[in-house]
């Protein structure tokens, strides 16, 4: 898929974005609030009359394809029940199915089974979002644009829906996802587009794009999250841990096994990483990862975020200024990063 969109918004602000995405199943789109993400999606879905869209998707332009869009607000039709909303989407679905699962499986995948008889007015924010997602999927689009579809859903439900969405995407329904949630973007997208002031300034693998973002937002105290990933090695010690290889080292994780591809991932929050220098001493933390200090961020609130790297794997550790002094940390030092599984 390729697109190039021009959409004037206000006198000062115009969306001018283009990208070409090859063989993608899930691409992330992120950027500051007001960067133009929603506007871009609306233009791609053919909802903006003022937009000039040049695009190629499959064998034609995007406007000849069936482009689904989950809006930033759920926009459930208030005169129908949840079931009615879903049925409306089903009624107008494409004759050619892009999702192989049957409708009940889609509804269950979005955690909506128990909501069918309810009226949209009585749903909670997260419930409404899930119904809106199910509705878009039941329409069997050829391309699905997701505009912060799960922002009001709690983390565990969100993780489960995102994982399921990934399988749907992988089975042949390409998706683009707007999200502000770093771990969703990191875990579930093949590549990320970073939008700034209406333009796509960066298109790369998630780790790189997120690193770019972190560098840009120096000055804020952002909880940085890194994700390590690699091929599963064996079920180690017990069935609670999965071991995987990452840059030649063994890392354990308790969640996020992608059993189909036999790969495992682990998100590591910067605050949970402990650094030491002469570390052969075993501690109660289950993961030990040798890496180099790449950069020591500026102190904010007496804390600094240290960027660590080994090969293509990145980690962040947020530690106190005092700790930097105590450990005499320097760029290029080899350190042990310990963190929970």
């Amino acid at each position, binding site marked *: 898929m390729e697109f190039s969109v021009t959409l004037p918004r206000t006198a000062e602000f115009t969306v001018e974005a283009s990208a070409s995405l090859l063989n993608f199943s899930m691409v992330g789109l992120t950027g500051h609030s007001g960067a133009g993400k929603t506007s871009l999606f609306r233009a791609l879905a*053919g909802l903006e009359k003022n937009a000039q869209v040049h695009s190629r998707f499959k064998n034609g332009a995007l406007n000849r394809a069936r482009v689904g869009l989950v809006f930033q607000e759920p*926009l459930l*039709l*208030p*005169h129908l029940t949840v079931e009615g909303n879903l049925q409306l*989407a089903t009624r*107008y*679905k494409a004759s050619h199915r892009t999702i192989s699962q049957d409708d009940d499986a889609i509804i269950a995948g979005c955690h909506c089974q128990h909501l069918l008889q309810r009226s949209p007015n009585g749903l909670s924010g997260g419930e409404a979002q899930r119904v809106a997602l199910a509705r*878009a999927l039941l329409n069997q689009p050829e391309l699905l644009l997701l505009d912060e579809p799960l922002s009001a859903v709690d983390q565990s439900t969100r993780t489960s829906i995102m994982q399921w969405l990934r399988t749907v995407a992988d089975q042949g329904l390409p998706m683009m996802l707007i999200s502000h949630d770093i771990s969703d973007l990191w875990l579930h997208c093949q590549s990320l587009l970073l939008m700034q002031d209406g333009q796509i300034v960066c298109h790369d693998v998630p780790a790189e794009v997120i690193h770019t973002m972190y560098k840009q937002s120096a000055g804020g105290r952002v909880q940085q999250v890194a994700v390590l990933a690699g091929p599963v090695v064996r079920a180690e010690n017990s069935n609670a841990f999965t071991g995987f290889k990452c840059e030649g080292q063994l890392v354990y994780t308790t969640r996020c096994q992608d059993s189909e591809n036999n790969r495992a991932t682990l998100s590591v929050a910067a605050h949970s990483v402990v650094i030491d220098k002469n570390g052969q001493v075993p501690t109660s933390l289950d993961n030990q990862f040798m890496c180099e200090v790449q950069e020591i961020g500026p102190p904010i609130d007496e804390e600094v975020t240290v960027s660590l790297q080994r090969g293509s794997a990145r980690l962040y550790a947020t530690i106190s200024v005092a700790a930097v002094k105590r450990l005499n940390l320097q760029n290029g030092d080899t350190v042990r990063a310990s963190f929970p599984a």
Partner: protein
Amino acid sequence: MPVSGDVTAIWLTLKLAALTSSILLIIATPVAWWLSCWQHRLKSVVLSVIALPLILPPTVLGFYLLLAFAPDSWPGQWWQSVFGTSLAFSFSGLVIGSVIYSLPFAVQPLYTGFTQLDRRYLEVGKTFNMGKFARFSRIVVPLCQSYFFVALGLTFAHTIGEFGVVLMIGGNIPGETQVIAIALYDHVEMGQYQQAHWLAAGLMLFSFLLLCILYGANRGGGRQWNFR
């Protein structure tokens, strides 16, 4: 007790009211929709033109319609040449007159309803690949249900009650253009008060029941705040 002529008049009235309301809905819906989408300085002018039938006293409006319907005026001639009958003093003429006179009652509520509609619901329909007509019938109509009911209620009631225009262009011909409003008017005019009271009471009761059914049917549409 109503006399036998009244029964014919009742039947005629119902036919007129039902026809007028239906025709008005069919005309007013696209007009109101188009107006709600149209952004132009002249919009308030068009809105005012639509309200104009209200400004003229019904008899006077009827008088001008009469002039227009006369066989020597061009609308009258055209009708004569196409349908072979004269428009004035015919049931068709009544229907046309009522439609013109009640137009504002149908257009105005629908227009307001359409402008207040959150267009993003239509965009949802568009992303579902719904056609224009499907979007209108499955999204706009149910969301604007209340406005349709108001338009229907006002035009229906107004057509039943209106008599100035009808008297003028219909000519009070029993069985053809003597609707119940005119029959009632005749009773009052002729001093047949007892009959007038009966007829008025019956008319009110009947229309009241019809309206109750109409507004009752709109129950579901009462609380459709655009929640999400």
